[in-house]
């Protein structure tokens, strides 16, 4: 009873004492290590200061840091990169640019119409076993296969030139039709009938003369796929229209044949404003 209790208390006291000793030892150890860390830090700072002094001393002996007599490599390299990039941009702006690939060459044909840059189209060509088209992003209605069959094997310059003509003419025709729909939709009656290649445009438009409006019909056929101007233009007015309008129709037909479609519209709509 009592003895057992006393023994138990004694055991507990012993354990507690042991624990306390352990923690005291640990704290001592920790304190020692901290002190050591402080020492080492001080040493490190001293050494750093010495190194700095030495470096400064060295520099003072040699003079100013950068030597103007020998230009450092970096600005020269930057200048070279800039001029190469400019050259590549010039090629890109000419409309046909390319990059050699592992198995051939990849061409980029950039198109434009009268100063406006439009889409770019890509051709990934393989050189072996013979010149062939691996992939491309040319629209399906451009006769790429026909042009390739004719020129790709024999004269690649001609191939690229003919393809570039087709693509530029196509985007030119498309641009004119888009401009017409965007800026002159109030003069167009109904829908502008066009097709994927934009080589046939049929539309009705209004012409005002002597404060009356007359409906005209225009049919533009672009027979040459490499040109952005029509090869055949038919402008007609209603049979009961006054005779003077026949002259206007002929004049319009001429305008459409010679210049950009939206510019023709701009010219005669402004002429109407200034005229009657």
């Amino acid at each position, binding site marked *: 009873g009592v003895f057992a209790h006393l023994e138990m208390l004694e055991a507990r006291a012993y354990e507690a004492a042991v624990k306390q000793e352990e923690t005291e030892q640990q704290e001592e150890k920790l304190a020692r290590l901290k002190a050591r860390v402080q020492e080492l830090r001080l040493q490190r700072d001293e050494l750093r200061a010495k190194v700095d002094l030495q470096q400064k001393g060295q520099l003072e002996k040699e003079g100013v840091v950068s030597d103007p007599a020998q230009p450092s490599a970096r600005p020269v390299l930057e200048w070279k990169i800039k001029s190469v990039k400019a050259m*590549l941009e010039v*090629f890109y702006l000419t409309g046909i640019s390319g990059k050699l690939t592992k198995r051939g060459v990849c061409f980029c044909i950039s198109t434009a119409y009268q100063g406006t840059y439009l889409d770019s189209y890509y051709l*990934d060509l393989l050189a072996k076993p013979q010149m062939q088209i691996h*992939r491309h*992003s040319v629209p*399906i209605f451009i006769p790429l296969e026909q042009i390739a069959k004719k020129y790709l094997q024999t004269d690649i310059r001609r191939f690229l030139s003919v393809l570039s003509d087709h693509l530029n003419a196509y985007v030119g025709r498309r641009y004119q039709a888009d401009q017409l729909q965007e800026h002159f939709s109030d003069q167009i009656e109904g829908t502008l009938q066009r097709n*994927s*290649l934009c080589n046939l445009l049929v539309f009705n438009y209004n012409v005002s003369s002597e404060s009356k409006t007359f409906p005209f019909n225009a049919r533009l056929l672009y027979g040459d796929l490499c040109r952005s101007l029509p090869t055949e233009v038919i402008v007609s007015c209603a049979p009961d229209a006054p005779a003077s309008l026949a002259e206007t129709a002929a004049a319009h037909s001429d305008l459409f044949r010679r210049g950009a479609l939206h510019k023709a519209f701009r010219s005669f709509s402004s002429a109407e404003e200034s005229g009657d």
Partner: protein
Amino acid sequence: MDETVAEYIRRTVLKIPRDEIKTMLQKWGFLSETQLQTINFHQIKENISQDVVQLCEENSADIKQAAVLDIIYNHIYPNKRVWSVYQMNKTGEETEFFDLTDFKKKFKRRLRSALKNVTINFREYEDNAVWIRIAWGTPYTKPNQYKTSYVVYHSQTPYVFISASVLKSNLPLLCQALVVASSYHDIREMELRSHSLNSLKDIVFKRYSQNFQTYYPRPLQERNVAPENADLRIIQENRSEKERIQRVNREVFGDGPQPKLEFAQYKLETMFKSDPKMDVLDKKEPFRCLVKFSSPHLLESLKSLAPAGMADAPLSPLLTCIPQKARNYFKIREKKGFFSGSFVSP
């Protein structure tokens, strides 16, 4: 107004989601704005459709106008149908002018000369696409408006998109009429099918993003760059491998979104290659098997396989050639001759 027309209009309106009914009726243009304002578009669809039929009765709608509403619905929801791609061939090199009125006239004439009982409707859209809706009858019965085929054709292209639904027997008739109307020689079905019409167009018109090597790259803001992990204690051990995978993936798939396909099917007729000691197959016959990949968006999931660590990069060309070869149904046979391995039939 014909009973059947009224019922057809009613059922078409019921297909449209309630929020879209008003806009679609406006696009249709058959009912005037004042008439549309008399309809309460917040009631249940059953009632809305009854009101629409009532108004169509006042305007004496006929089957042609009802068909236009159906075309508009299918143009806005083309993904409810399965589309197949057909390719036409021609031998001549003359420039095509594609006159739309000419096309429509030739198509109708050709189709009607073979089968009188058809309803044919056309509708043109801004992207040079002509939508043709054909309701088929038989030599002795009127056209069944619920058995329709749809054709989408972009002028001056050799591709036609057809959603035939039922009645495969009328397909040759349809193909012939198309060939004649578009001034081509013949037509064949390509091994390319999907619910997403626009993705099929992207594939054959080459409108999907392909990665071409150029010195003049597209603006960098198009590429998504994940934010750098600011915690310097975390080091990517596999950084170079991850970058290699990204680079190879980008070369194969390009930067932009992929066309949406639901299946790729590979029919294998190749020999089973096993350890000769195991002697699994006694007969030296091709082991026929069909492998089908399906996904809500197959090409995007293939694109994410390597970065997710589930497949090695580069992926098998059998999977990555799908947009370029414009097909998702393949037959793989043994390559005869020197090299072992398989060869994909054209």
